[in-house]
């Protein structure tokens, strides 16, 4: 009698646990992705000095072109100023066609620049950032840019930036 009960219970245990296992494999893999807004910054293969250069950003939402973005801005600054965006230039972009937004800029000096797009489409915001090399940049200059960036990395904290310890 006792043995029978024990065997019965063991079977029940096995059944319950296997049921739990199958249930867990059925897990719904629903993705909670909020943003499908994609922005691709398109820049020329090479950027010449003191010439009007066209910079573009291609916007898609769920792989469909976004033609009515609320805001598309290009922010450009010299990499020597680091990522603190000191002295950056903000240009509003115009929609051309098929989700392609365009600005033109002229680079006056050789060097490394950052171009960041600020995009708002409804509740969604993206701000991808690219690094551009304009004209001829020597290895030393690149190194100098890196070192400058380190110093400016602390952006937005001028009053306390000089703290030493």
């Amino acid at each position, binding site marked *: 009698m006792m043995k029978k009960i024990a065997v019965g219970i063991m079977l029940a*245990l096995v059944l319950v646990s296997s049921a739990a296992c199958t249930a867990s494999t059925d897990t719904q893999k629903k993705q909670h992705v909020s943003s499908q807004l994609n922005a691709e910054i398109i820049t020329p293969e090479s950027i010449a000095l003191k010439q009007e250069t066209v910079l573009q950003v291609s916007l898609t939402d769920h792989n469909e072109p976004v033609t009515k973005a609320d805001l598309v801005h290009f922010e450009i600054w010299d990499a020597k100023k680091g990522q603190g965006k000191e002295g950056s230039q903000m240009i509003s972009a115009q929609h051309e066609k098929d989700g392609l937004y365009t600005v033109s800029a002229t680079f006056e000096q050789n060097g490394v620049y950052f171009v960041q797009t600020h995009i708002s489409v409804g509740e969604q915001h*993206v*701000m991808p950032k690219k690094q551009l090399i304009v004209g001829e940049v020597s290895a030393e200059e690149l190194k100098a840019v890196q070192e400058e960036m380190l110093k400016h990395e602390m952006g937005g904290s001028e009053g306390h930036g000089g703290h030493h310890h």
Partner: protein
Amino acid sequence: MEANQAVQTNAVSVKTKSKASFYQIVWRWHFYAGLFAAPFLIVLAISGGVYLFKPQIESMLYQNMYYVEQPTDGSTALAPSALIHFVQQMHPNGQINSIMFYDDTTRTVEIGMVDNDIASSVFVNPYSGEVMGSLISGERFTDFFVKMHSELIIGGTVANYLVELAACWTVILLLTGLYMWWPRNRASIWGTVLPRLGQKGKVFWRDMHAVPAFWLSLFILILVLTGLPWSAVTGKQISSLATSTNTGYPPYALGSGAKPESTLKTKDVAKGGPWATENLPVPVSTASSYVPLTINEAVIIAEGAKVEKPYRVIMPKNEKGVYTVTTSHTVPGGEATLHLDQYSGAILSDVRYADYGIMGKAITVGIALHEGRLFGLANQLLGLITCLGVIGIVVSSFVMWRKRKPQTKLGSPTPSKDKNRTRVVFFLMLVMGILMPLVGISIIVVFVLDRFVLSRIKPVKEWLHGA
């Protein structure tokens, strides 16, 4: 019990006889279960009682690292990247992987770092950038008690299973205990809701055991149930039940779990990035390349998405990684976990408390209750009273046991001669064993061991089974 039994012998009727028989059987279960669970309950109560007060204890112990004075000149906190920079200067080889901001303006910012394979938290003054000190992960004062509470210090799966086993057996102790506590022949508040302090010996100790246990039974049960989501076996069952009914946590709800990936827009992503030690892009030979967003930009996005402090930002682990923003509010409701594309700042996933399923919410609230965070100091004190009560209950049971234990035997209650009732109770226990698998397995293991091994060794049998 003695008192009850004495009363029962006075009024011999068929009905009381059957009750006495069940009582006898239930008492035996209660005895063996208690014998096993008691040491664990003491460890859990002590470690839990200390851990409840983690916020107060750590604020006091690590005051110099945790708190700074807010400048009176109205200056604001430095940019997160600046704080990271200061920490990086102190620990040039450290890899910074997270930054935590507290809602208290006098709290330091906590930066998570791995240096030489050692994970630690570095505390930095948000106003001056001064590094206040660091603590190695897992070596804080309360970490010891967490480990004691969940893995009995020795650690590992076995210890974790033992804790769960003891917790589940505690449920059975509560049920069998309440059955024995239930007033049978006379309805009196003495010995049920109030102890008979005037009595001496066994009656006194019985009341010191049963009366507080009755009062605390609900709290103990709540602590056991709210602790189970952490457990290895039952916890897994709970989460698979929540997942299968779609009432748990939505995908990407937890910062420690799976993460989405950043979209790699082009093959030419600048090397380096926030996940790397140097936290700056290295110019590459191509004309243009994407640059990961800085921690400052990630924080701006998080604040823009109405994530409230305290929250932690976890750095992307590699090129495909994301910035993960995860809150750690003490009171449930403000939870948020966001995953940000490290190149575009797009919010790839944003899960709030409101998005949790009913079980996800219940588990979140239950955990807060268990940890004494749900309703402030009162919650902590209730937890503490329960912990102290459990210790008292174990002590009184120990006294009762010593009082009746013969020198040469374990002193277990006499087995009932009523085979049918013994089976009924055994069956009920096995039903409990289905609800709590570890209990079921342990019953079967003990049953088989007792039936086929221990019963054949006469001295052991006599010692274990009493009269």
